[in-house]
């Protein structure tokens, strides 16, 4: 398989990111959509400005951080075009990104508290994250994460791109738990986004599992039926998990509306 060099990867990533941001910002910052969720005018004004500013910030910061990560890898390894170097860049990039959402959430929580006090709005709390755990059971996920990592490390390669999806899964869960002083429409909106991204992300993980498993069955020089069987079993478990979470969506949605 021919892997792209760093610059092709960079241009493609930034292009997809900007397109994604454009679509998601237009959708999320739509005043009619926010009002239809039952949000007060003060919240609508704040969220519109905040979503747009955040998208602009992400659109500028992520390409810069990717370049910084590539620069660090280039200084250490002297090459950024090999597939394993690209993976190192992405992992380093994820580490560089971590402080930003933490600081951002702290700022946002402060602002939400001010808004709740100003407008006299009710804020909601998902007690012990019971609603969130309808679509993300942490103990299962931890077990699944350990199984996937063990499978990839033992049979495929020590750093596989699927690890990014595993990291994102936990990142999304942590992000969903971090919001405070949210009104009901905001919590519902946020949780539904997290649900959609969790499912998409698990879908990508399933793709990687099936891809490596089928490759190990059809590969002329590296054929290994054991890896194919193990990978397929893990893939089936993942598919069952996705189906189970999807089947719980009506209950999840009902609990968020309650």
């Amino acid at each position, binding site marked *: 398989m021919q892997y792209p060099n760093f610059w092709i990867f960079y241009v493609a990533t930034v292009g997809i990111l900007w397109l994604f941001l454009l679509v998601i910002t237009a959708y999320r910052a739509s005043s009619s959509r926010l009002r239809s969720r039952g949000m007060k005018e003060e919240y609508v004004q704040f969220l519109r400005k905040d979503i747009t500013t955040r998208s602009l910030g992400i659109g500028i910061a992520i390409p810069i951080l990717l370049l910084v990560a590539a620069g660090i890898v280039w200084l250490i390894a002297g090459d950024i075009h090999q597939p394993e170097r690209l993976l190192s860049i992405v992992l380093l990039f994820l580490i560089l990104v971590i402080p930003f959402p933490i600081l951002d959430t702290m700022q946002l929580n402060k602002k939400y508290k001010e808004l709740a006090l100003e407008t006299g709005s009710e804020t909601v709390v998902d007690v012990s994250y019971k609603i969130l755990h309808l679509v993300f059971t942490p103990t299962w996920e931890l077990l699944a994460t350990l199984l996937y990592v063990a499978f990839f490390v033992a049979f495929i390669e020590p750093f596989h791109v699927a690890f990014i999806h595993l990291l994102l899964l936990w990142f999304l869960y942590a992000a969903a738990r971090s919001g405070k002083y949210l009104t*009901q429409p905001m919590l519902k909106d946020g949780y539904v986004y997290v649900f959609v991204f969790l499912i998409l992300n698990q879908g990508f993980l399933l793709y990687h599992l099936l891809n490596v498993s089928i490759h190990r069955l059809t590969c002329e020089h590296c054929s290994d039926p054991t890896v194919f069987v193990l990978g397929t079993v893990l893939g089936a478990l993942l598919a069952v998990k996705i189906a189970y979470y999807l089947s719980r969506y009506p209950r999840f949605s009902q609990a968020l509306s309650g």
Partner: protein
Amino acid sequence: MLKINLSSAVPIYEQLFNELRRMIRTGELKPGDSLPPIRSLASQLDVAVNTVARAYQELEAAGLAEGNRRKGSFVKAQGTALSKESARIFKDPILSLVQQGFDKEEIAHLFHANLNQVFD
């Protein structure tokens, strides 16, 4: 889902008590369910630990929860028995009103009008 109004004149511990009581009565919290650890709920709500502890004490005093030093606080069985009974008592007349063509708002209006008559 627990609802709190930060700008309300009602103290937070009282709002918390009322909300937890509502959740127990409506079956959102079932008998034997453990209440969230005090520190964890205080962190979620961003309030003092003592505020949550006081709400839990009130729940225990009202016979809705029981505390266990090692295992934390639990919802008492009595709470749900009451909620199931209440749900059954309310559900039949509501269904009957729906069959007669009343919508949700009209039923809520009727309910409040009657509730006010009883208490005024």
